[in-house]
């Protein structure tokens, strides 16, 4: 049985039976890493563990920024358009623009329609 021990203090989440002390499944992270690039042949045991933490921090940051957009629109439900707006507004998230580009267009179309009325 895994013991959280020394590094559990850095974890912000709880302990899941399936993922051990990590919030994200390590096997899935490893699969995504392998599919990212044909050159990725071997991955050390610690790499998915490091990514589980990095992903958690990434999701937290993008969520916080998206929520800021939600609040600016005076809503209490975070929508995908808020995620798109947060990505577009943050330079270091430029690599995500193709992922959210459809959502940005929808949000823009919505605002344009409102202006026409």
């Amino acid at each position: 049985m895994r013991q959280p021990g020394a590094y559990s203090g850095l974890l912000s989440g709880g302990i899941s039976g399936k993922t051990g002390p990590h919030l994200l499944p390590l096997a899935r992270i490893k699969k995504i890493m392998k599919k990212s690039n044909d050159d990725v042949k071997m991955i050390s045991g610690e790499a998915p563990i490091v990514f589980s933490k990095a992903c958690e921090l990434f999701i937290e940051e993008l969520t916080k920024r998206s929520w800021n957009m939600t609040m600016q629109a005076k809503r209490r439900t975070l929508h995908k358009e808020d995620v798109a707006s947060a990505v577009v507004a943050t330079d270091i998230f430029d690599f995500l623009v193709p992922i959210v580009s459809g959502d940005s267009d929808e949000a823009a179309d919505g605002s344009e329609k409102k202006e026409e009325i």
Partner: protein
Amino acid sequence: MGDEQADRLLPIANVGRIMKQILPPSAKVSKEAKQRMQECASEFISFVTCEASDRCHKENRKTVNGDDIYWALCSLGLDHHAEATGKYLHKYREFERERALQNKASTFTDEGNSETLNSEELRPTNKPSSLEITIMDRR
């Protein structure tokens, strides 16, 4: 969505849980927003892995390790992620070293006179645990 599609994304329940823990209790998140976050997280892993893998390739190494991921986060401008991730990696390596020591010590105690382990063998092997980007010894 087939199995292949599901395999390239982190589970929506896990992603949703992380989102909720950072939001106010009264906040709600649409299903589409969680799905978009799943895709963004996968793209994040791919993007950083590619950068880390390129570094390995240039240094003629085959295995992507935690230091490579730390380096990639720094080089992609994700400095504050890199700092926290680096600390986590450091703690994890310490934890693993201690656990390995405990396992060896308990094996020695259990097996009594079957093996003679000297103090050198009980010490962990020296792995580069420095968080500095430039340190990777070539052997």
